[in-house]
């Protein structure tokens, strides 16, 4: 089967080798603020967001990106709910690799954005979650493709940009998924040092590979820790400093999403988002109130109930992950 989707985010490994050769491996401070970090995203860039669905999404960064009115990006819509939907709400991208879009999983789907995707104004290339994970992994390994056994025989294959290959040892047919080398990745983490060494607790999704694959890596972090946190236990280093370009401290930076071991998602607020997204007008009001008319992320947090609400979500998280049940 020939695929007809546009190949996005692909580079020749030799071109990427030259890029990574020049990228500094010095351990220098990368501390900056959200505005500066957002300015690293350029017109036409392929952008990848870490996390999964409603979990560990760098919301603070994405809100700032919307305020900066970034346009014409190419997005990876991979296992994505809140990140994709916010990026779509800001009409920041017009092409995307899509493996999962629009829906907030068990909570429902924002109708306005569903309509936006149905309008044909975003050009999509289809993939499965596994294929997207493997595309990052191919890049992380320094390869141009990986052979996999998924997507074969389906329209998902047809509307992708994958190609069939044959195993030289067995004659088996494989699908070759092309490497995905994003221009910029944004990953929210539990802790980082000023050099970019970063710690993620809980599921990793594709973030280790995304950080290896991307030209620029922006880390938003719940807190800054000393480098000794990593040197005393190297297993804490989920992402090493030499891959990182910017470190931004964003406490509660994934709200209203779930930051595992820190705070649970704000289900009520996500439902408010979904309800607002039932029509264009209320959705625009939601966006104005929570993003465009806010000077920064703290204003949004205050809108949503401030410290009282955040402490409630922290308590909820304790109940789930420590006590193992809701009180």
């Amino acid at each position, binding site marked *: 089967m020939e695929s007809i989707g546009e190949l996005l985010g692909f580079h020749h490994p030799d071109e990427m080798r030259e890029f990574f050769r020049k990228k500094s491996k010095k351990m220098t401070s990368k501390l900056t603020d959200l505005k500066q970090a957002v300015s690293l995203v350029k017109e036409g860039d392929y952008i990848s967001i870490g996390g999964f669905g409603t979990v560990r999404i760098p919301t603070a960064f994405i809100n700032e990106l919307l305020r900066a009115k970034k346009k014409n990006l190419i997005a990876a819509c991979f296992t994505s709910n809140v990140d994709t939907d916010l990026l779509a709400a800001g009409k920041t991208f017009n092409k995307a690799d899509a493996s999962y879009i*629009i829906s907030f999983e068990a909570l429902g789907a924002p109708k306005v954005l*569903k309509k936006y995707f149905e309008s044909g104004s975003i050009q999509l290339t289809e993939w499965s*979650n596994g294929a997207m994970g493997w595309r990052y992994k191919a890049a992380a390994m320094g390869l141009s493709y990986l052979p996999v056994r998924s997507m*074969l025989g389906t329209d998902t294959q047809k509307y992708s940009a994958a190609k069939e290959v044959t195993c030289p040892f067995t004659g088996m047919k494989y699908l070759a998924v092309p490497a995905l080398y994003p221009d910029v990745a944004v990953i929210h983490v539990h802790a980082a040092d000023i050099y970019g060494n970063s710690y993620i607790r809980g599921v990793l999704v594709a973030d280790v590979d995304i950080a290896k694959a991307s030209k620029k890596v922006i880390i938003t972090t719940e807190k800054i820790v000393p480098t000794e946190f990593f040197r005393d236990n190297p297993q804490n280093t989920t992402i090493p400093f030499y891959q990182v370009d910017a470190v931004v401290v964003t406490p509660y930076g994934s709200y209203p999403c779930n930051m595992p071991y820190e705070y649970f998602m704000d289900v009520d607020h996500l439902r408010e988002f979904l309800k607002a997204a039932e029509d264009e007008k209320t959705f625009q009001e939601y966006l104005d109130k929570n993003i465009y008319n806010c000077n920064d992320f703290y204003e949004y947090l205050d809108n949503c109930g401030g410290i009282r609400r955040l402490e409630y979500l922290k308590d909820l998280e304790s109940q*789930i992950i420590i006590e193992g049940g809701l009180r």
Partner: protein
Amino acid sequence: MNTYNDIELMICVASRIFEDGASVSVGTGIPCAAVMLAQKLYAPNILITFEAGAVAPVLPAMPISVGDSTTMHKALQTGSTCDQMEMIQRGLIDYCFLGGAQIDAYGNINSTVIGDYKKPKVRFPGSGGANDFASMAWRIVMVVPHSIRRFTNKIDFITTPGYLTGPGAREQAGLPPNTGPYKIITNLAVMGFDEETKRMTLESIHPGVSIDDIKNNTGFELIIKQTPKQTEPPTQEELRILREEVDPFKAVIERKAE
């Protein structure tokens, strides 16, 4: 006699298909409830995995996202999506659980678009992990409400492979042998697949449902080899554990089956 709604019925029936020690890739909602119920009643050694990376958690509540903190509670691993997909590719996962907007007689699933791909009438989320699961797990189980709109002769987009065009088609496409759709559990019946033609067959009818009900809600010819069995209705114990222990907050069982 017990009373129960369609969702409870589907969950209870689905919970019975797992042998103890089976491994399963789970999504949120009905699949998760069914697996939690199975673990408590029929398959205490069931190995539960989630595509965001969690393996073998002790689930404290119904997850909202397959990557949320509930899936990590007392888990034995919290790895990556590729880790999970490769576990399936290596042949370690017996069952996966899927839904879908359209299903055809070969168990092919559409969760991408209704209408033309480029300018669709309805856009759905797309594959997510479904295509990977259905390509590489041993057995595909679907749990979906039964309607003529959903059970259709020609689906608009094959997001996720069933038996594709029939016998041998999966192997020819390059998919691993001996895999494919296994059971479809709806609010009306349990369906399986015919060994020879790979088309959907009726296996058992839920209490109070007639064959005509099923035919009227199925847009293709369902193979009915003999008088189908009647599905064992949810037992009192299944319902009690489902309501009290699996979903005490009624996050799933009081949702409407769309």
